[in-house]
């Protein structure tokens, strides 16, 4: 065994140029797939986390069916047993009630459609961070029931300023038309211009009156300490409250477009990586076959001396194994460094790329992740493709005959 290892090792160095090509192919495949995958998943994770923290929340508790068909008639009065349960679950960091609705917002000179997000100014900051996006003016103070915050774009569209009063018109829970005056206390900029033109944040008490809710709410937004706890808590809540007609929703339910986009992107990435692996596999197969064919005579001598075919194949396998091992060490090391760098220093995009990102509702930034599973799955695929590439050359060796006397005539 030791001698076979020695033979394998020296054979790698004998034609070092070719070995280097094989090695580079392996390293290239690893780096490309780990970095690509890292950026893809890292950027997803970042966007999910940003959306979650910005406003969506880790989870939301709503009446069943509300998410698919949001109507004021699917709102609920949060009873004390729900509140108690939420307080008792240790993974929950905080929660806050919300009312979602639509309406028409009118200034003196203009009017536009609005999506109303009514929040509890005291508790909301435990759940979301959109208040940090306020660029002008201030966030809604707990006592200012009829203050609202709008996007800067809406401010411009309505041709109003901070401190101005607008009228919001909407139909309430009981079917009556609500019609209230609100003071704009601040303006935010989320970065997505569509959202900045349509969203209105309102005090939940103001919304309660405007919409005649009588204490009803659309949703309870819940924040967790850890992204990874989402499935556990979701299940826990569903187990508890499903019978009472509630359901817990995570980002996948709340942002189905984002989820679908990611799934599509994921499929194309997997196809791309599969093609990459296929190309690399053919490269390895080719160099291996060359190196084996070149040594047919040498192998024939070894067979004549009395080595077994299995031992020759073992030499071949050891050669592949050693090269793959080196490739994996160098490749993962290199891609670890690259991923770590991008992880620490997200790349800001600009120009057309940034536009594409924004169009999909993404923040135009490239992130990466240090998720170990990316490295593992890449290493698995590399091992599998090198193993597959070895089969045919090994078969050729298996069929080899011992070197016989040379001249026939």
């Amino acid at each position: 065994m030791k001698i076979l290892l020695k033979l394998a090792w020296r054979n790698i160095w004998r034609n070092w140029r070719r070995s280097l090509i094989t090695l580079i192919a392996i390293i290239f495949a690893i780096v490309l797939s780990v970095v690509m995958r890292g950026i893809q998943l890292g950027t997803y994770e970042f966007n999910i986390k940003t959306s979650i923290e910005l406003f969506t929340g880790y989870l939301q508790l709503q009446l069943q069916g509300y998410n698919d068909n949001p109507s004021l008639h699917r709102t609920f009065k949060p009873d004390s047993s729900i509140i108690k349960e939420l307080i008792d679950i240790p993974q929950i960091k905080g929660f806050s009630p919300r009312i979602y609705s639509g309406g028409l917002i009118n200034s003196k000179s203009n009017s536009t459609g609005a999506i109303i997000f009514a929040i509890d100014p005291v508790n909301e900051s435990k759940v979301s961070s959109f208040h940090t996006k306020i660029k002008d003016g201030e966030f809604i103070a707990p006592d200012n029931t009829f203050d609202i915050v709008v996007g800067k774009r809406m401010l411009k569209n309505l041709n109003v300023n901070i401190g101005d009063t607008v009228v919001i018109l909407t139909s309430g829970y009981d079917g009556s038309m609500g019609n209230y005056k609100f003071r704009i206390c601040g303006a935010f900029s989320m970065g997505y211009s569509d959202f900045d033109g349509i969203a209105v944040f309102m005090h939940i008490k103001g919304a309660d009156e405007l919409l005649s809710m009588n204490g009803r709410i659309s949703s309870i937004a819940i924040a967790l300490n850890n992204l990874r706890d989402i499935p556990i808590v979701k299940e826990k809540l569903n187990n508890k409250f499903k019978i009472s007609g509630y359901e817990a929703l995570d980002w996948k339910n709340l942002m189905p477009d984002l989820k679908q986009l990611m799934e599509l992107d994921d499929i194309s990435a997997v196809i791309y990586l599969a093609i990459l692996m296929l190309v690399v596999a053919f490269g390895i197969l080719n160099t291996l076959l060359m190196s084996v064919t070149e040594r047919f005579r040498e192998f024939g001598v070894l067979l004549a001396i009395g080595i077994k075919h299995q031992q020759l194949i073992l030499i071949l396998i050891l050669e592949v194994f050693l090269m793959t091992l080196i490739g994996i060490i160098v490749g993962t090391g290199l891609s670890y460094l690259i991923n770590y760098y991008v992880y620490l220093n997200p790349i800001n995009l600009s120009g057309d790329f940034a536009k594409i990102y924004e169009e999909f509702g993404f923040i135009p930034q490239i992130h990466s992740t240090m998720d170990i599973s990316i490295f593992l799955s890449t290493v698995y695929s590399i091992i599998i493709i090198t193993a597959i590439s070895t089969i045919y050359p090994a078969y050729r060796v298996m069929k080899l005959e011992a070197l016989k006397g040379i001249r026939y005539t």
Partner: protein
Amino acid sequence: MFKNESVIMEIIRLENVSKIYSSNGVSVNALNDINLSINSGEYTVIAGPSGSGKTTLLNIIGTLDKPSKGKVFINNEDISNKNKSELSRLRLDKLGFIFQAYNLIPVLTALENIEFAMMIKGIKELERREKALKVMRELGIEELANKRPNQMSGGQQQRVAVARAIVNSPLIVLADEPTANLDSKTAILLLDMMQNMNEKKNITFVFSSHDQKVIERAKRLIILKDGFILEDINNRR
């Protein structure tokens, strides 16, 4: 006890061996009904014109080829029913080969080449190193120990190949045209060496050759023609 040389044993016996090659519908009788036995201590040369079947005969003796008809016995054991891996083991333990083109393993040094078969057999490092160095000393090639084949001349490589063939004390050493690639001075040196090994250590050699220098030294000369043994002359020296 007898001294080693005084015990004469039959090592190889061929009984009615024929070899027919057929390719593209044309069949060639390379060997016809050969009966032959080779004893320990012999120094035999198989001569004959090109195409007479020398290589074929050596291949069959060396278990590298199977006869179409007839039986081959090595150490009185019929080898026709042995499988591939048993034959490998037999070659590893009992046979030594010298090839026309030396055919050392390029990535191993002379010493490692000589030790190779013993490594495969799993002989301990100390023992095999000692054996290899001893043979190298006897053949006067110690200074080549750490050289790779591409750092040696053809004659040096062939001497290392001889050392590789005899180091394991095989029953028999088979050499197909061992001098064909060497100039005559180097060839004579090599032949002297092998003759010396035969006389001093009683190693059994079987050669095939056209080369007059090789034929001159044969103790036993077998002349083949068209796959038949034309002459078998013993005790020439």
